[in-house]
């Protein structure tokens, strides 16, 4: 018994260690965002300081807010488009014969797996000819390459969980398939719709690669802007940390909102939903 207790307390020590290693680096950056500039460079690094909003104020006055807006617009447009296209398709796939659905499922899995660089060159060339380079519309369109398959993949189990008997009952009552889908099935899958939309938004929001390759100044997104601080404006760590904090803020807020469904979306195909 005593041995069991020792190994249990050892386990808690391990857990505590994991917690520190996981959270400390992230909290350090957030702390830096609120540190006065002279304290950031201080040696040894200061744990206690008078918090300041000066770095955020600098950002508010700069171009960064426009990039932040671009991020919001492209992520939202991509999400809405992917939901409008993907949700009905996911419903049909959930009701389809297993074999055909399996084959389509593989194609959708593939489109999640292909590295973004495979899309970068074709889209870059196509956008050069069509003038979509450095536009919000072009960026939102390229986000569909991953968000559409994400929506289909995430929504399917939600629809599969709705008993088909409900639609059958609706159709016996004379309702058409659209009515059955929109008025009977969709309301039941609403939590799934909300979670999927948020996750879809986050994936687009987190994108760095496409925005780096397909935008310059007009449609530049927040992640690219923050990285720009690293490259071109010397080492203004306070500004960089504040920018990073702003970029992660929506992600953290939304993640807390959907943490129950998050598990399903992040494991993307690897476990049963």
């Amino acid at each position, binding site marked *: 018994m005593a041995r069991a207790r020792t190994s249990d307390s050892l386990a808690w020590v391990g857990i505590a260690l994991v917690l520190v290693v996981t959270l400390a680096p992230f909290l350090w950056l957030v702390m830096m965002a609120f540190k006065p500039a002279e304290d950031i460079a201080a040696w040894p690094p200061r744990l206690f300081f008078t918090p300041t909003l000066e770095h955020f104020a600098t950002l508010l006055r700069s171009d960064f807010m426009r990039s932040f807006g671009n991020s919001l617009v492209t992520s939202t447009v991509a999400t809405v488009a992917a939901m409008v296209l993907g949700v009905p398709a996911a419903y049909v796939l959930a009701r389809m014969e297993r074999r055909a659905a399996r084959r389509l499922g593989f194609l959708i899995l593939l489109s999640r797996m292909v590295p973004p660089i495979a*899309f970068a060159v*074709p889209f870059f060339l196509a956008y050069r000819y069509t003038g979509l380079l450095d536009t919000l519309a072009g960026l939102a369109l390229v986000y*569909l390459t991953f968000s559409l398959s994400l929506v289909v993949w995430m929504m399917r189990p939600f629809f599969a969980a709705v008993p088909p008997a409900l639609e059958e009952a609706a159709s016996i009552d004379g309702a058409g398939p659209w009515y059955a889908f929109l008025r009977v099935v969709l309301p039941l899958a609403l939590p799934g719709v909300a979670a999927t939309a948020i996750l879809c938004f986050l994936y687009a929001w987190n994108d*760095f690669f496409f925005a780096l390759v397909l935008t310059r100044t007009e449609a530049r997104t927040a992640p690219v802007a923050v990285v720009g601080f690293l490259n071109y404006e010397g080492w203004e760590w306070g500004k960089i940390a504040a920018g990073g904090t702003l970029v992660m803020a929506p992600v953290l807020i939304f*993640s807390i909102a959907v943490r129950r469904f998050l598990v399903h979306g992040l494991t993307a*195909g690897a*476990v049963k939903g």
Partner: protein
Amino acid sequence: MADTLAMASPAAGRATARRRAPDAAQRRFRRLALWPTLAVLAAIVGLPVLYLLLTSLTPFTLTQPGTESDFSQPLRNYMLLGEDGRFWNSLWVQAQLSLFGVTGQVVLGTTIALLLHRRGKVAEQLRGILLVPMVLPPVVVAIIWKVLYTPDISPVQWIGAAFGWEMPAPITDPDLALASIIVADTWQWVPFTMLMVLAALQTIPDEYMEAARIDGAAPVAILRHVTLPFIAPVLVVVALFRLVDSIKAFPLIYILTEGGPGSVSEVTNYYAFLQAFNFSYLGYSAAVTTVLVLATVLVSWCIHRYGPAEADHG
């Protein structure tokens, strides 16, 4: 579905007959709901991949007009790949990044999952908190580690100095650059393995554990003969998923080391990016990328074929 039912019983047959007309509407609905999505996917995923393949057969460079449709030596790029030392180096770097990254994530993630696989409110809350790195934007993760790896402002350096250790600047040291990327990548993705393994652990029937314990099996023996065999399939899937994602590694490398020093941390994905967007050799970059896509298709097929039945819904 309706047809099978119809054959099963005459009563059901009558029911289907009554529903003939709505059935046509049903089919129209399915077409309308499914086809636009498949068409869009074909246009934005299928066409670009096809275009990529075609471009890989040309010596396309942006500075020389006409090269985009020059198919006179279609396999030239692939031939050049064979002699390109930097390409082979990038594959080697990729192999190291994938091997050490994925192994580290699977081992650490499994260990943490085993530690946290316990009842109680605290453990439950902790599981949620530990997911934070995984949801952060990759750019933010890269910045976090840039701070930790930059000597002047890094708290890690300071802790090292306090113990009297001479700490190198990892991202500018050729021996440590790749390792520092692997550490950052592992930090972000250990939670993923943890999450998946925890889910798998919850499916182990209590009776198995009970039986082993009653038989007097030591905890290590239980782990080896009951727990690990049970979660093994999940570990395979997790490893394959992380393997595919490690081929996509980009923001960490772009922000932390830019592939350097020299090309010690230049993975194939990054090399393809440089060829296309720094050197403008789009045709050659497309050939490099095609190799990557083939590797991804192979791994995806393995997931589809050997993964649990649920994994195929991708």
